[in-house]
């Protein structure tokens, strides 16, 4: 019998799509909760292997052969040593992979990162472990590893006592040119967040205090002397790392408060002198709305000026479907073989809002040009899709993952 079509919101059981077509879906053997670590290996035997870091225990990472995007096959899936640690982040350079470890509380182990030799994807071989554990450290939340030489990361350290427990992870640079002996070469933290600093601690966000700590720490070959850091409650940070042992602040753009905090990614579009800055939504049911993606004019590096935000899908449609809804990870134009790079099309994940592509040809008026919102995964406990991270490969295929249960979705963009 007829029912009304008016005034209803999106149903979490339906698929929404514009210019994106599902090629395949893999639930990763029932462990379909993936964090924000996705890296593609162009294996020597010609296969394309997508490495995924799990959101939480028991699994560590999973490798999926995506050579044929319509038939993804799990190559290997590994275990964590215990349930109070998560990997969350990884990066791949050639046949070497760095995997982050963050413990659920300070003082626990493992807390740091592992380097693996993945030349035989079925059998990852541990090369070394970098220990970042300490009485005030939860270890490593996110790694950036694109040149095979240095790992830039958001990490705690044995010798670092934060002025507030949430401020434990700062920016660290680790030399891995000798992969069996990783060694720290430099670090930077927001002044006031370490006990002993000669400035007072920064004022906390009254409502949405997620910590003054680093999240994504990106360094690109176009500007090897710059690190682009999302500093969560601290906003967006640009550092001069021409001397890696002494990073210096170049620019610091803070917009929370009045906004709701959690600066996640600072993605530079070098030729266009723009930064794309994404927030992360960290509360369910729209509590910390709006979580946005910002377009920032960076012509004058020391004075970043926000000029627009990506048009977000209707909040009333998505915010109450269960779980989070708002910005999170972007495809970061990784400077490694196998990764797609574009300075006009930006692809990001928005939890319940799915994966979305935007055209920023006109930086003042970004346009949404494609999206895909899968139905709620069968095994999900939150009741809606929660797309967490995205990787676009140089075939322009979009790989996106659910935070809890859905696993991997492989999409084709028809834009």
């Amino acid at each position, binding site marked *: 019998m007829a029912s009304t*079509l*008016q005034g209803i919101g999106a149903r979490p059981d339906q698929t929404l799509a514009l*210019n994106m077509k599902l090629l395949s879906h893999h639930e990763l053997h029932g462990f379909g909760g993936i964090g924000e670590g996705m890296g593609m290996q162009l294996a020597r035997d010609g296969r394309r292997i997508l490495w995924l870091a799990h959101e939480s225990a028991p699994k560590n990472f999973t490798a999926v052969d995506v050579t044929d995007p319509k038939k993804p096959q799990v190559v290997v899936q590994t275990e964590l040593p215990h349930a109070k640690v998560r990997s969350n982040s990884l990066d791949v350079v050639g046949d070497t992979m760095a995997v982050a470890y963050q413990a659920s509380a300070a003082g626990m182990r493992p807390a740091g990162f592992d380097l693996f030799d993945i030349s035989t994807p079925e059998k990852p071989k541990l090369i070394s472990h970098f220990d970042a554990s300490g009485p005030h450290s939860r270890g490593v939340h996110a790694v950036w590893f694109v040149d095979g030489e240095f790992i830039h990361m958001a990490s705690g350290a044995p010798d670092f006592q934060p002025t507030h427990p949430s401020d434990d992870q700062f920016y660290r640079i680790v030399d891995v040119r000798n992969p069996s002996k990783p060694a720290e070469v430099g670090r930077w933290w927001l002044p006031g967040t370490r006990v002993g600093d000669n400035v007072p601690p920064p004022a906390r966000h009254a409502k949405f205090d997620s910590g003054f700590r680093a999240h994504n720490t990106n360094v690109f070959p176009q500007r090897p002397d710059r690190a682009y850091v999302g500093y969560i409650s601290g906003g967006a940070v640009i550092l001069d790392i021409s001397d890696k042992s002494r990073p210096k602040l170049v620019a610091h753009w803070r917009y929370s408060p009045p906004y709701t905090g959690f600066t996640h990614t600072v993605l530079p579009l070098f030729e266009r002198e723009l930064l794309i800055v994404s927030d992360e939504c960290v509360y369910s049911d729209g509590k910390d709305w709006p979580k946005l993606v910002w377009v920032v004019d960076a012509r004058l590096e020391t004075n970043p000026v926000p000029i627009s935000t990506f048009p977000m899908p209707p909040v009333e449609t998505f915010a109450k479907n269960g779980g989070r809804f708002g910005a999170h990870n972007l495809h970061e134009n990784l400077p490694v073989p196998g990764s*797609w790079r574009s*300075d006009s099309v930006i692809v990001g994940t928005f939890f319940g809002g799915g994966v979305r592509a935007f055209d920023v040809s006109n930086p003042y008026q970004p346009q949404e040009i494609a999206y895909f919102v899968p139905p709620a995964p069968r095994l999900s406990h939150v009741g809606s899709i929660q797309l967490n991270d995205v990787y676009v490969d140089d075939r322009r295929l979009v790989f996106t993952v659910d935070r809890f249960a859905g696993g991997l979705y492989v999409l084709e963009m*028809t834009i």
Partner: protein
Amino acid sequence: MQNPAPTRDSLAGKLPVSLITGFLGSGKTTLLKRLLRDPGMNRAAVIINEFGEVGIDHELVASSSEQMTLLSNGCLCCTVRTDLQETLRELFIKRRAGEVIDFDRVFVETTGLADPVPVLHTLQTDGMLGAQYRLDCVVTLVDAVNGLQNLDDTPEAAKQAAVADRIVITKSDIAPPAAVATLEERLQRMNPYAARTVAINGEVDVAFLRDVGPRSTRATPRDLDRWLAPSGEARPEGAYLGERVRAGAHDASIRSFCLWFDKPFTWDTFSAAVQVLTSLRGPDLLRVKGLVHVAGEPGPVVVQGAQHVFHPPVTLEAWSGTDRRSRIVFITRNLSRESVEALFAAVGTLAAPRS
């Protein structure tokens, strides 16, 4: 594998819109009734004037509201609320919010007396519509019983046939065969660039009505031929019986011709010629569509317009084949091929030499 372009394909990301026009009694309702039941219309949105007209059977309805009905084949049918512009906007917004199916094309029924050109303009002049939709084609129904008379008597009917990319001849089963032949000849003379088909009881292959205009900047020569229908000019002008039939009162002045240019244009020269043409004779340019060789561009530039409104030009990714001549189809009223040719020649002569 070739690395895909890091930019957006400015055509592929837009939802195609087909306009269905036809004079009163031309059989639009019958055609729409058939279309709405066609399994191939899965994920199509159809905008009609009134539900009552197309008489949707209850058993075909999956769900419905006052303004919208979802049919069991997956086709979304809705009526024009205030105006078409508003309806197209609302449809896109509802699609984005998941309130209606994620339709992948739109068919729009225009009223029998409507001049289709303003509808073409709507798609172009409304920023949001221009960003989300593209004109795929104009489908015009002409009935074999009264069509010839309508072409003679009413300027709207003549204009509808003139701007068409696709012509569907209806009611041929109840018209004398000679009348059908005469109508075909008349239409061939008036608009040889529209592919034609004959429908009986509204039976038309849905494929004939869609995927007509260029839908990607990687369009193949076959795609482009499908749009510009070069078969229409296979025979020399004037060779038809239609040349000798009585000229209609209204359509006698409608002409269609295709101009070919051997030498590449500069964009300045081309746009200057088009500007002169539109500013002096805009109302008489019923439809212009073509591929232009612009010096320095990687592929042909797709241009199309109606009267004074032109769509933004789109450069295709590459040339295919050796023929790189520009070809532009003009459908005009009281404007001769010679005048248009002369204008392009004159502007070409005046163009500043490039050093």
